[in-house]
């Protein structure tokens, strides 16, 4: 399995965001020149739902512009699964329009949060191992 190193602080921020938004799904963007120096954008889930998310389009537009201006990349898109496992759902896969970004899912369904990363390309899901730095 391919491995990426992500700063522990970024991983913790994603998990904290997921917990703060519980029981709703939360979403956000991981940006940077590379994962080892990545930073986070917490975004608004306009659906306020525990089973789905739709990132606020206006925020997304501004953040993507910010990322371009900083000459960074949208390295990953994250969202939480309050009640289900850390694996992309059929709808997650169908709506995965950014094959160049990884999809990070944090599950709060168990006793401890589980964070996993995937590449999703034309419906094909490949798990990428996450190593906290």
């Amino acid at each position: 399995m391919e491995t990426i190193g992500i700063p522990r602080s970024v991983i913790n921020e994603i998990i904290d965001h997921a917990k703060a938004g519980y029981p709703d799904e939360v979403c956000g963007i991981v940006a940077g020149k590379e994962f080892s120096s990545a930073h986070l954008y917490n975004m608004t889930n306009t659906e306020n739902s525990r089973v789905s998310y739709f990132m606020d389009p206006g925020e997304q537009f501004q953040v993507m512009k910010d990322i371009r201006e900083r000459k960074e990349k949208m390295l990953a898109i994250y969202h939480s699964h309050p009640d289900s496992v850390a694996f992309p759902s059929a709808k997650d896969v169908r709506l995965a329009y950014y094959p160049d970004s990884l999809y990070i899912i944090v599950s709060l369904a168990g006793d401890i949060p589980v964070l996993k990363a995937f590449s999703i390309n034309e419906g094909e899901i490949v798990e990428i191992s996450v190593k906290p730095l």
Partner: protein
Amino acid sequence: MPVKVRIPTPLQRLTGGKEEVEAKTGTVIEIVNDLDKQYPGIAERISENNKIRRFVNMYVNEEDIRFLQAEATVVKDGDELSIVPAIAGGISQ
């Protein structure tokens, strides 16, 4: 001065890797259909029956077309039209 159209990464394989293309002025849907003549297949990814798909956000300069006249919004000379696929998902269908 033509309209500048910003193409998102996932659609750049239809534009030969180009991040920005040019289009003639017109309404949003006219521009989308016009782009399809240069880049076949692109209109179908953005729209369905001349309506912009629910999971595609479009902006004229900084404004979401949902807050303008949607597909009928007129894009003028020098404007920038951005195509931005939504970021969404969920366990329900």
